[in-house]
């Protein structure tokens, strides 16, 4: 089992994802340079947060043309597990690996704080270790996290149960008070139809130890590890 964390110029949560996987989950992990087209036999790829290419033009708009993205697209299309966090989510949307797009936060300011999200689906490799309806306390840190898609795409997402996380209030209600950035339908994270590519705006890699205020992000990485263990057994 091996994780890869992609490094774009301007990625700044790459070390955090690397630390969470390598030092907290004690799983093999290596960095993948954006110029490389070789995914180094990684079994799961994380696109980390940050400001890839300075987020010039639009968030993720330039990163999606990086050489590494060609390989990631192939990897994803052949069933490889890809998780995009924050800027990584934005990049996956730009690359067309996930539907929709990210707009500026409704308050037009950068927001960094703990929010609450509810796990909606557990039949994915990113959420299998969670309980359906489980509420995670997890930080966001972004200017452009207002998830937007047209009604047809939203209907598709709903129909195929691709919405993995909704923003909620701490007690789990769906009102606007729990939505920090104006995302449509309080959407915080989604997966593709095939369920092997997922993106979310909050940062699970920042909450993998209780010393950091919450360890609720662990469940996402643990799910991925379980899925990889399962896949390895299946092929054994």
């Amino acid at each position: 089992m091996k994780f890869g964390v992609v490094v774009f110029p301007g990625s700044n949560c790459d070390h955090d994802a690397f630390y969470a996987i390598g030092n907290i989950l004690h799983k093999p992990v290596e960095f993948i340079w954006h110029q490389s087209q070789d995914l180094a036999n990684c079994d799961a790829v994380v696109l980390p947060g940050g400001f890839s290419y300075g987020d010039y033009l639009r968030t993720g708009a330039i990163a999606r043309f990086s050489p590494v993205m060609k390989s990631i697209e192939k990897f994803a299309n052949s069933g490889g597990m890809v998780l995009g966090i924050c800027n990584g989510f934005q990049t996956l949307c730009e690359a067309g690996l996930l539907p929709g797009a990210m707009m500026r936060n409704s308050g037009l300011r950068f927001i960094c704080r703990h929010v609450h999200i509810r796990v909606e689906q557990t039949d994915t490799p990113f959420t299998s270790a969670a309980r359906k309806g489980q509420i995670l306390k997890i930080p966001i840190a972004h200017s452009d996290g207002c998830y937007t898609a047209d009604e047809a795409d939203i209907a598709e997402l709903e129909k195929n149960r691709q919405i993995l996380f909704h923003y909620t209030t701490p007690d789990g209600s769906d009102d606007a008070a729990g939505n920090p950035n104006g995302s449509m339908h309080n959407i915080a994270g989604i997966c593709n139809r095939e369920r092997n590519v997922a993106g979310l705006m909050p940062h699970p890699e920042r909450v993998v130890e209780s010393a950091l205020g919450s360890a609720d992000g662990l469940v996402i990485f643990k799910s991925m590890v379980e899925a990889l263990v399962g896949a390895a057994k299946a092929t054994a």
Partner: protein
Amino acid sequence: MATALTEIKVTPEIAAEHGVTAEEYARIQKILGRDPNITELGIFSVMWSEHCSYKSSKVHLKRLPTRGKLVVQGPGENAGVVDIGDGLVAAFKIESHNHPSYVEPFQGATTGVGGILRDIFTMGARPIAVLDSLRFGSITSDGDVDARFACGAKTDPATIATNRRILDGVIRGVGHYGNCFGVPTVGGEVGFEPCYSQNPLVNALALGIARKEEIFLAKAKGIGNPVIYVGAKTGRDGIHGASLLASAEFTEESQQKRPNVQVGDPFVEKLLLEACLEAMRTGAVVAIQDMGAAGLTCSTMEMASRGGTGIEIDLAKVPQRETGMTPYEIMLSESQERMLLVAEKGREREVLDVFKKWGLDAVVVGTVTEGGLAVIRNHGAIAAQIPAHPLAEEGPVYNRPLAAPAPRVESEKDWFAFTAEKTNLTENFKKLLASPAIASKRWITEQYDTSVRTNTLAGPGASDAAIVRIKESEKNGPDGKKTMRGLALATDGNGRWCQLNPRVGAMHAVAEAARNVAASGARPIAATNCLNFGSPEKPEVMWQFSQAIDGIGEACTALGTPITGGNVSFYNETLGKSIYPTPIIGILGILDDASKALKIAFRNAGDTIVLLDGADSSSSPDTRRELSSSEYAKTVSGIVAGEPPAIDLFAEKRLIDCLAALATEGAVQSAHDVSDGGLAVTLAESCFAANGLGASISFNENVPAEYALFGERGARAIVSVSPTNLAAVLATARQYNVGAQELGNVTGQSSLRIELKGHAAIDSPLDALRDVWADSLEHALKGIS
């Protein structure tokens, strides 16, 4: 070629336009043995500007304590460096970017943060935290200072609107740079006084970590070694930022200096960080210096001067953003995100390859030479030729005249009058909680990424100091449990107190920062300072400066926190009026076990609230005079008068040692020092930070009610203690000779009750207090986006 030495004939008038005095011009002629050409004049003018040369402050700065057993690098390098154990060092420094932040708030603040981050990674250290100490003019019409006081006046609506706009731009700028660069902005403070209306203070502090043997210095070495320019291209932005913007006072025309403000690009800085650290690891880098104030001039001249070598570069090789730039412009540009480094001869390829990998320009522009002469060529022709050492080290030094201002004419009627019996103290308390200085800063700090790098154990407001852990220090503890060290950082400065008494005010700034660090559970070990003052050409300002230096020196010596670096910002004046003298002190502390960090939030109902007091209980304060300088007097009565509380550095030291010991023992549940707004605000903040807990205390000291509740006397902190630990805590306090008074309890009810001599002085549901405190800043600033 348009580089002839005689392009513009330099005259004393042109020299004067560069801010070079007649005596300084004569000194230039003496060093060169001839008249300078225009490029040389430009170089001298920036190197000898107040901002770069410290010519008015040097004689005073010498009095600061700078040595200590943990100090690896004191003032004079890009940042101070201290030993934090386990083979690791911390590099940290605070710097101002005040004038640019008034002229263009967003870019001024971004480049302030960018500059201090470069100072840190130039040393070979990876930045892990940023703090910002900010001061603005009034953003509400409440709390204006009464016109009878020197600094008092009604703030008009237009000024309030401008102040809000400046604040918004500065906050966005600070946030943008740190957020994009990927360093958490974990703390600092924000203050408001009318005197900062047209001269906001933007002081940014950065902290970085390195292995001890990896520290880099800016000393050119090795004759024949190549000099390499890396990073962003050079443009015409920021020319004379240091000499004209930072070293002269403001006039009504200052807004026209906008082209002198640099423009920052945190994305390029992030690439520069990664590339520089990677290049340093190759072992092929000999020295490195960032291009901040005075750009290429300062970096070439200082590297050569410190190394005792000469340097020769050709400007035609410098990557340029625009065509047709003259040597004068290239040498004086303050374009951001650039570095100059010296590589080992024959290994330049290794260095250039790293920068190429990160998509940055890297070009060999010259060589280190023998003999101490800096030769600046352009397409081969000599554009400037200056002996580096005399330029960098033999600049003018002024022992400017000082004069104490005329004593303030104050009588008792100017002081705060105690009227507790006729006053609704709870209502006044709410006013205080809503004042911008005391109110929650959440609206500001949520615009900063506080948790990137996953080291933040206490971000803004969680503890009295910001606390980050050091992953590199992880080791197995005696019980087999893994432990990491933590670093605590706090900044403090009280301009109002320094205005009333610069020496005592400056001592308080040191003491409060150190107390904050101790209240987070850490041992304070070192300090950095940013000295914001008016024009040094005014004898009263120089007197304030000299007094403040004495106060800082005395306090840093007493508390064992040597000054390792910092900066001086003079000419903080607008239309002839100086700001309050505002020394900002940053103090760094170590926690041997980061898991023992203390936070301000109460933890359990039933815990005992104990007031720790380092002072000798026999002292009796001059209560009216002292409260007149408080946040309460200013907010409730518009009074800025009297004296700051008397300071007892021994009492501060006793309390600091006691707090650090209590944290190590794991004996207390929470700790919070008593400062702005006094005991009442301290208690309220510890309740607000806890969810659903309140407090009920009773206080019997024989002082007027308002003094007991809102007085700001130092050397005090409240801790909450579980019943089982109470005896141990009281014993530790006794051991450190610190008074410990049991005030009451943390309660499960959401209310705050403070009884004075048997009568309820404040009794309020917590929500009613929290509402005014939590949202007042947001209300004041609503609609400015």
